[in-house]
């Protein structure tokens, strides 16, 4: 399928083609990147769920999930401003050059999901790689069964990809449940935490997989709901994140027991996760 990319610690220069401020608080921005080297840009093939190291010279590197689908022209990352590198990244204008290393890690095994119902459950800004996944699934609509997405944010202003959400909502070949934590003026959608909404939606675990991405607290309460719906631990996919330095299995920072998030993850089944020490 995809040729193994060269994995070393040297980033490729990429130009920020477009910056979109995604949320009302301005803490999340999407960066649309194009590798300066045309061939590298053409060769850049990833699977939804993979990540890349973004680097700002003088500040450092950090791992960010790839939010664009493989078919999309520009490589997109939605970045939360929180640390040294993401803060510097947020200050960069369109046209600036940054470094990119990737794609790294393992994405969702989408080939394996063919013929199955897919439930995507996202909380907060962890939705990014599930956005990539959803775009992919919709492009290969006929290969998959029912597609359901449950996506929650604290308030409407914190939902990402608002235009796309509106478009997905109108589609009849998928179900999108958007929810916010508390009532907000102008919001006519669902209100409640993601686990509660999942319980209401009650997706069936039969011939299905669930992809869950969100803050630890959301995951903690969603997993029992999925279990009740009949999802076995092999059917639930999660995505881990840990501090990383190399992204290619050398530096050992991201280890969860023997599992290196960069090399063996970030995507992991609940079944595999249960066998690991709780260091994430």
């Amino acid at each position, binding site marked *: 399928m995809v040729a193994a990319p060269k994995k070393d610690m040297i980033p490729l*220069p990429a130009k920020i083609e477009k910056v979109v401020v995604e949320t009302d608080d301005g803490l999340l921005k999407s960066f649309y990147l194009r590798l300066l080297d045309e061939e590298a840009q053409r060769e850049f093939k990833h699977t939804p769920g993979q990540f890349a190291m973004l680097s700002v010279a003088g500040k450092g590197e950090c791992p960010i999930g790839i939010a664009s689908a493989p078919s999309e022209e520009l490589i997109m990352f939605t970045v939360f401003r929180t640390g040294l590198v993401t803060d510097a990244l947020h200050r960069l204008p369109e046209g600036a050059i940054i470094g990119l290393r990737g794609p790294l890690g393992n994405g969702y095994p989408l080939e394996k999901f063919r013929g199955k119902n897919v439930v995507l459950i996202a909380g907060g800004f962890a939705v990014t790689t599930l956005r990539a996944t959803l775009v992919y699934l919709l492009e290969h609509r006929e290969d998959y069964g029912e597609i359901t997405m449950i996506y929650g944010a604290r308030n409407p202003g914190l939902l990402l990809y608002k235009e796309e959400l509106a478009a997905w909502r109108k589609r009849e070949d998928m179900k999108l449940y958007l929810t916010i934590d508390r009532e907000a003026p102008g919001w006519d959608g669902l209100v409640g935490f993601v686990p509660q909404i999942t319980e209401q939606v009650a997706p069936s675990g039969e011939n299905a997989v669930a992809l869950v991405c969100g803050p630890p607290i959301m995951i903690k309460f969603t997993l029992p709901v999925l279990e009740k719906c009949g999802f076995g631990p092999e059917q639930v996919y999660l995505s881990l994140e*840990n501090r990383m330095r190399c992204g290619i299995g050398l530096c050992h920072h991201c280890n969860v027991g023997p599992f290196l998030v960069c090399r063996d993850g970030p995507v992991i089944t609940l079944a595999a996760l249960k066998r690991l020490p709780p260091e994430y």
Partner: protein
Amino acid sequence: MYYILKREDLRPWLEAINREYTLFVPRTRDGFGPYEGELYLEGKTRLSAKEFFLPWREPLLVYEARPGALPKVVEGPAEQRVVFGVRPCDARGVILIEKVFSPDPFWQKRREATSLIGLVCEEPGTECFCWAMGVNPFSGEGLDLVLVPHEEVYLVKVITEAGKKLLSLSRAAEGGEEAFLSREKEFKAKFPVSPALEKLREKDLMTIYEAPFWEELALPCLNCGACTFLCPTCYCFDVQDEVVGSEGVRVRLPEACMFELYSRHASGHNPRRSPMARFRNRFMHKFKYFLDEYGEPLCVGCGRCNEECPANINLWDVVRAMSEV
């Protein structure tokens, strides 16, 4: 192939090597340095030979610190280096790290540019236990040549072509095979592999991880980086961007898993927040995670951690507890 080198021929040989290559030797108990006459052969050095492959500071990229500037890849030192006096434990450390680092171009470059001449210890140091970790100091593993101090001479075993070439700069004469092999046999008979390793292989990972002994063993630990920085097998690294004025460099440098910062996310969340969790991670990595994945423990029994640990944490206390849980 086996040779005999008279002790008095060692210095002339080193001088000869130094004329053709950049030669590093153990200069004092502290560690290695360029050969300038000083030579410390009484025992292993405090800092291991690891630093020739995972240096204290490995520049990866240089860039001008201005927006849009393209970084350049650092080529690294190219001159051929010879390191004399590498203890077999340190050489074995290189082999273990290589299991992880073999795809790394910076590692490869340093490996290709470096020849190692090993020196077997006259007798084990106070805290040594290389044999217990499965090291056979006579094997020459990871080395180009291995020297065994024997009566008035050094017995030399040639391991690689590069080693043979280096030895040709000396007055060594062929011979000594019998003595060498008998010394090796004697060592193996006297110093067996620790049975703890087999037990560790069989133990369930989570059983060890969740065992109650960690809290007590970790109590005196300072969570400093002394053990990891002195360890010839610890390979974790940090990456830092250093900027001075208009110049920037991205460097790779050793880091210790004992540090709180090691696993702390930008958000502040830390999966190994407690000092005990970090202590446990270091030993689990060495004696379970790595052992399970590569079949060997990430330890060569040099004993530096035991010797230098400020808190007197003893590796064997931990290994014993892990293997007998």
